């Protein structure tokens, strides 16, 4: 008897929902998540009653999970799970949704992230360096001074600098280029142009990372709706085909042979996702790279192969990331300049670019879009390959 697994069901993103974003107070993470789901479903031209799958990813404050089904009164879901691989979660959710659609498990799967790390009256830095008891081996690390995510990424960046001669100015070139892109993005929170001198004058957070090497912190929510190409053909938005996906979680050992700071999961998940998509790196025309820090971008550029290992700094300093380059990077300004929604930041911009809805920042060629996700301290990596076309 023939089964119902239909290999030819091609998954697409047919809906995108982005809530009000930034210093928005008085709403819970679940409030933002519910709003994002509603926006994504409406954007897809569907109703909540059409949704039969929901994948949730909670951020720093939690509170986004299985309860969202009841919150939104979703009936008879055939897919429902909480997903967590930190900044790699958006890519992971979309890949699981794509597989569910391919397998016929579900027909309309919404993937949502929302978070409210900002508290009224507290600075952005307070969000990701909250006081907590110094217990056990984590206490040892905190005693060392590693009380923030920034300090741990600084260790990674410094190791790369020591190995390859990467400089603060190299990192600055990434911040400057992305701010230039953000100028064209009405959703971006930081649109005033900056110069390399501005970057160099910004205060140290944890050397070698300066303030302008660090992402924003935002309250808000983003959701995407994944369905089949066949269904999307009758829906209002241009479909965004999900051509390839992969993850890599290096599991760095605490020892000298670790490639921590020198190589990320992009080195494995990139080639795997491109292979699934049937395209090569040279076919990529837009890259939306996860950018919790400028250094994350630099390392990802090397690991995906956009430049040679160790050449990420000179590559960035060459102006390759700025608008008007042949290959468009982080076209919305990224997490550094637009909004920080973990992996939903690069994913949402990729959807906008794939639809051709980028306005003055629209990349001239959007055939093959690579989207990265990065979580933990370079511990988790996801790659998606998206396209306006059914094959790359």
């Amino acid at each position, binding site marked *: 008897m023939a089964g119902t697994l239909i290999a030819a069901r091609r998954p697409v993103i047919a809906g995108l929902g982005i809530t009000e974003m930034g210093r928005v107070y008085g709403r819970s993470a679940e409030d933002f998540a519910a709003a994002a789901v509603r926006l994504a479903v409406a954007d897809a031209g569907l109703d909540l009653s059409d949704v039969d799958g929901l994948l949730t990813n909670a951020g720093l404050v939690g509170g986004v999970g299985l309860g969202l089904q009841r919150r939104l009164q979703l009936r008879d879901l055939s897919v429902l799970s909480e997903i967590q691989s930190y900044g790699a979660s958006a890519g992971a959710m979309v890949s699981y949704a794509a597989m569910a659609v391919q397998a016929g498990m579900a027909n309309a799967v919404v993937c949502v992230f929302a978070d409210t790390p900002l508290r009224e009256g507290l600075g952005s830095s307070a969000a990701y360096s909250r006081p907590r008891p*110094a217990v056990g081996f984590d206490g040892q690390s905190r005693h060392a*001074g590693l009380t923030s995510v920034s300090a741990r990424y600084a*260790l990674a960046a410094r*190791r790369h600098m020591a190995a390859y001669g990467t400089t603060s100015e190299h990192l600055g070139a990434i911040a400057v280029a992305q701010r230039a892109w953000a100028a064209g993005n009405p959703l971006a929170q930081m649109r005033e142009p900056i110069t390399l001198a501005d970057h160099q004058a910004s205060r140290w957070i944890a050397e070698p990372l300066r303030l302008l090497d660090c992402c924003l912190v935002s309250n808000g929510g983003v959701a995407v709706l994944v369905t089949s190409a066949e269904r999307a053909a009758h829906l209002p938005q241009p479909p965004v085909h999900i051509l390839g996906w992969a993850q890599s979680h290096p599991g760095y050992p605490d020892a*000298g*042979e670790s490639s921590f700071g020198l190589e990320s999961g992009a080195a494995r998940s990139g080639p795997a996702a491109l292979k699934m998509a049937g395209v090569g790196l040279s076919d990529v025309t837009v890259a939306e790279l996860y950018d919790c820090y400028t250094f994350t971008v630099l390392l990802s550029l090397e690991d995906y192969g956009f430049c040679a290992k160790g050449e990420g700094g000179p590559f960035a300093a060459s102006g390759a990331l700025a608008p008007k380059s042949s290959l468009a990077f982080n076209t919305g300004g990224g997490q550094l300049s637009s909004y920080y929604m973990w992996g939903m930041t690069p994913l949402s911009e990729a959807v906008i670019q794939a639809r051709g809805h980028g306005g003055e920042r629209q990349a001239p060629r959007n055939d093959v879009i690579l989207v990265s996700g990065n979580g933990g301290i370079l511990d988790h990596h996801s790659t998606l390959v998206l396209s306006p076309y059914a094959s790359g």
Partner: protein
Amino acid sequence: MTITRDDASAAFFDGTARGVLLLRRCDDCGRRSAPRTLTCPACHSARLAWEPARGTGTLASWTVVHHRPAGGVPAPRTVAGLVQLDEGPWLHARIDGIDPSGLRAGLPLTVAFDRPLDGEAVPVFQSAD
């Protein structure tokens, strides 16, 4: 900062109280690993014993953490090190007594112990020169 122990770190902090930096050593393959390790990174054995480290190592990476200025006082700085012990494992430890301008990868280090009034004794590293 007061450090308290938990079950997983109790033996480690018993060591620091005696002025001994303890590592894990695999009963099956002999591989040394970091104190927080519960599974041997080489052979996946769960049989890990505690063993004193030599207490020497080199600087693998570091960051100068700039804390938030408060009350008009200049922002304090902490040098956080990723120390590669001579046995191979890595340890996060504060680097004491070295001006940040003198920090470089491979700098030889030796262990000392910070003994706050409250809580556990904590390994820190100083220049071996």
